[in-house]
């Protein structure tokens, strides 16, 4: 199974044991995919199917990526429950959910191709819940006009990752597990004719701490999000913005970084699980939101933009679950940004629950049998972690940092970034979801663009024949020195020459998480954003003086020290873009600019690394204009 025929470790692929000295492991592929969640696996499968020698490199064990935590479902207009659904309606819902700031072409491709991508999972062994006719069942979710989410109870992400994982294993794709990429490598202009193109990636094995170089003309970033920069988040430790930061350092640009989605329903108690996701399916399946006075408050928060399609009485809202033709959607199923802001306002107004959230109630609305069948993971999660029986009492929930709409700027059809040979897909790419993502559109995004990226990357590599970009040994040495710096008790990088290094990476991470949570959170102001940037500058300076204990073998302190660099540059990008955009739209809410502004509605903010390589620069860029034939879908309403 290995490309080198050597004694690779059966699980990780590691060629060297921890006790072995010296040497640098090298592998050569056509396509290297960084990340093994839904996007990375789907991309690798596509690249392999297109004939490319493909490797997957991932920070965790195979099958543990963040996709596993997705609960609700995969949005696709298959029409199994509502035959009147079609890609045009899905496209329209997606654009409106993103407050029209989406890349229209991505939203179109996504809506058109999602049904076949879901059907394909079934060919590979996925077992979705069924309709009475035996077809894949589809459930209601916020912002979607029709019941559209293919699902397996409330563990759809697990089903998706297991299906893709088993497919990748069956195809014999090489997987390098617990292997972290710290730098992308580019051709330094050595006469290969490929100056500036991607030539590979530099990584370390978590197990041994040893380094490895991947030589490859195509690299696909599928690294997921950035949530670990915030204190209250539904994201796992892996979400440190690696792909975002790798792309920036390689010279690519990010767009829409100011848009961070705060999911309306995260657990608020006990403190140990604060932020843990409570699926939107609870509301899709009939759950409602109440404040401490028992009031179903979402009716007070219906924005003008969605007024014509949202129910304004409880009676109409309740009828909608069974009769969508003659009734409008309950306000609990407005897009996530609207619901999160409403919850935030209720809590601020002193109408919160005992632990600082509000109440999500399905117990009084559906029978226990229904709840346990439709929401088994939620039932289990609350029972085990909070001693709450969701079939008998309401849940306490509040907003949690969940998803970043911003990411690497890519071509809609090929997922190619601004750097030749570098592709990005899934949460680490930007544009598809505009200023706010609809629930269910993430899993379908991974599949649709994962496949496209894999095919483009394979096709580019095949077209090169022998004229491949070259790995620069100087760059490899520099990447190695950077990676080892946190073990050095003194450094010469400070302005005053050599200084003693004493900073603990866990402390800096925790300080960053607090700053981002308090100053760049769900409601923002110029004053707080300016303060956050000053805080980030200080943290960047402190991060120059990290010191980790122990040695290189499976050392989480060292791993965090290397991830911190990525978290800092991504946090700075978010704060800078958020300060610049003087309006409120989707996942970006400014207390000092409370409404949307039409002139901002036609612009993206683009982030690049500045010339010193230590900060970022920001530019405005016009939003691509939708062709007239697509505009007609919006007039019809």
């Amino acid at each position, binding site marked *: 199974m290995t490309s080198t025929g050597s004694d690779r470790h059966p699980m990780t692929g590691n060629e060297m044991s921890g006790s072995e000295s010296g040497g640098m492991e090298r592998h050569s592929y056509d396509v290297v995919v960084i990340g093994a969640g839904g996007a990375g696996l789907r991309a690798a499968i596509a690249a392999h199917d297109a004939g490319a020698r493909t490797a997957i490199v991932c920070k965790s064990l195979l099958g543990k990526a963040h996709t596993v935590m997705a609960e609700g479902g995969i949005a696709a207009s298959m029409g199994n429950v509502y035959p009147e659904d079609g890609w045009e309606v899905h496209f329209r819902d997606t654009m409106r959910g993103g407050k029209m700031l989406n890349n229209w072409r991505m939203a179109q491709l996504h809506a058109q191709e999602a049904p076949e991508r879901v059907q394909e999972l079934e060919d590979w062994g996925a077992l979705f819940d069924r309709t009475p006719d035996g077809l894949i069942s589809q459930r209601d979710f916020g912002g979607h006009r029709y019941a559209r989410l293919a699902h397996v109870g409330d563990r759809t992400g697990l089903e998706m990752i297991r299906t893709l994982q088993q497919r990748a294993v069956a195809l014999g794709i090489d997987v390098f597990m617990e292997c972290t990429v710290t730098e992308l490598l580019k051709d330094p202009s050595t006469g290969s004719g490929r100056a500036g193109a991607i030539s590979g990636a530099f990584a370390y094995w978590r197990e041994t701490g040893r380094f490895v170089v991947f030589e490859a003309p195509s690299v696909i970033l599928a690294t997921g999000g950035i949530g670990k920069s915030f204190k209250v988040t539904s994201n796992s430790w892996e979400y440190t913005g690696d792909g975002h930061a790798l792309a920036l350092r390689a010279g690519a640009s990010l767009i829409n970084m100011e848009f961070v989605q705060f999911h309306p329903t995260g657990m608020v*108690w006990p403190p140990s699980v604060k932020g843990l996701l409570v699926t939107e399916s609870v509301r899709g399946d009939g759950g409602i939101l109440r404040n401490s006075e028992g009031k179903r408050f979402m009716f007070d928060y219906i924005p003008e933009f969605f007024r014509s399609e949202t129910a304004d009485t409880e009676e109409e809202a309740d009828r909608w679950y069974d009769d969508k033709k003659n009734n409008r959607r309950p306000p609990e199923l407005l897009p996530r940004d609207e619901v999160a802001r409403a919850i935030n306002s209720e809590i601020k107004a002193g109408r919160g629950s005992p632990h600082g959230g509000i109440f999500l109630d399905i117990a009084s609305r559906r029978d226990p049998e229904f709840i346990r069948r439709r929401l088994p993971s939620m039932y289990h999660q609350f029972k085990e972690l909070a001693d709450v029986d969701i079939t008998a009492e309401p849940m306490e929930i509040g907003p949690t940092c969940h998803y970043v709409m911003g990411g690497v700027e890519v071509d809609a059809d090929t997922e190619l970034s601004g750097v030749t040979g570098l592709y990005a897909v899934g949460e680490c790419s930007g544009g598809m979801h505009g200023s706010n993502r609809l629930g269910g559109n993430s899993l379908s995004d991974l599949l649709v663009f994962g496949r496209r990226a894999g095919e483009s990357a394979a096709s580019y590599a095949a077209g090169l024949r022998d004229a491949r970009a070259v790995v620069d040994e100087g760059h490899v040495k520099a990447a190695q020195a950077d990676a080892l710096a946190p073990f050095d008790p003194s450094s010469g990088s400070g302005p005053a020459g050599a200084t003693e290094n004493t900073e603990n990476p866990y402390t800096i991470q925790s300080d960053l998480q607090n700053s981002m949570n308090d100053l760049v959170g769900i409601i923002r102001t110029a004053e707080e954003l300016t303060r956050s940037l000053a805080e980030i500058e200080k943290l960047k300076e402190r991060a120059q003086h990290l010191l980790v204990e122990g040695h290189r073998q499976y050392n989480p302190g060292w791993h965090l020290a290397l991830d911190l660099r990525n978290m800092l540059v991504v946090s700075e990008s978010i704060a800078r873009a958020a300060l610049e955009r003087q309006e409120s739209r989707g996942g970006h809410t400014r207390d000092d600019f409370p409404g949307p502004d039409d002139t901002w509605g036609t612009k993206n903010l683009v982030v690049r690394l500045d010339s010193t390589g230590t900060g970022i620069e920001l530019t405005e860029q016009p939003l691509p204009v939708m062709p007239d034939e697509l505009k007609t879908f919006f007039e019809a309403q």
Partner: protein
Amino acid sequence: MGYDLKMRIWRGDVDGGELGDYTVEVSEGEVVLDALHRVQATQAGDLAIRWNCKAGKCGSCSAEINGKPRLLCMTRLSDFEESETITVTPMRSFPVIRDLVTDVSYNYEKAKQLPAFAPPARDEDGKRRMAQMDVERGQEFRKCIECFLCQNTCHVVRDHEENKPAFAGPRFFLRYAELDMHPLDTHDRRELAQGAAGLGMCNITKCCTEVCPEGIKITDNAIIPMKERVVDRKYDPLVWLGSKIGLRTKDNDGRSEV
């Protein structure tokens, strides 16, 4: 509400190690993983722990707590007396890499040996049809989060390294059963399950079911039915008769052996 928790944590690597004593402040509602993270952040920055979601969904943080195979993120401190010392050691059936992290490659090797799902062509409209009742059997098994606690606790391989080559373990018996009960699969894997995967070595002591954090009835719903199906195929003349007169399960109709 906080108190000082006494912990003993195994520190070491493939060459050996020992339990280290730690005292760490913990608070209400926390789980064992919270306590370990606090040790890591304040006392032992290089303490190796494998974890991801901290929500019982990814199955990364498997270890042994006071000797019992558990997920670190789903074991609440309130299950123990405040005065009790909590001892955390790595899973015993897999080689240690460092501290609480083990080399679970055995499981990934076994996964590769399992022939994949093989469906027939789709229906004419490009879709597939299955009844909810039929997919539910497989869905129970697909709840598996691959924490490998069942593999760790199974006495066929626990302290019996020599059995590993011939024994796929409960996690993969689950997978064999899932595919065998899949309404659309066309492969007959019964011979393989009994032979290469070592289903016959299991003597249904249900240890795997007891430790499953997802509550999957591994023994009752997967292993025993698989054993029955294997036996049916091999020995039972009534099966032959039953299948002729349409009384037996049709799960294996139209399947070809792999």
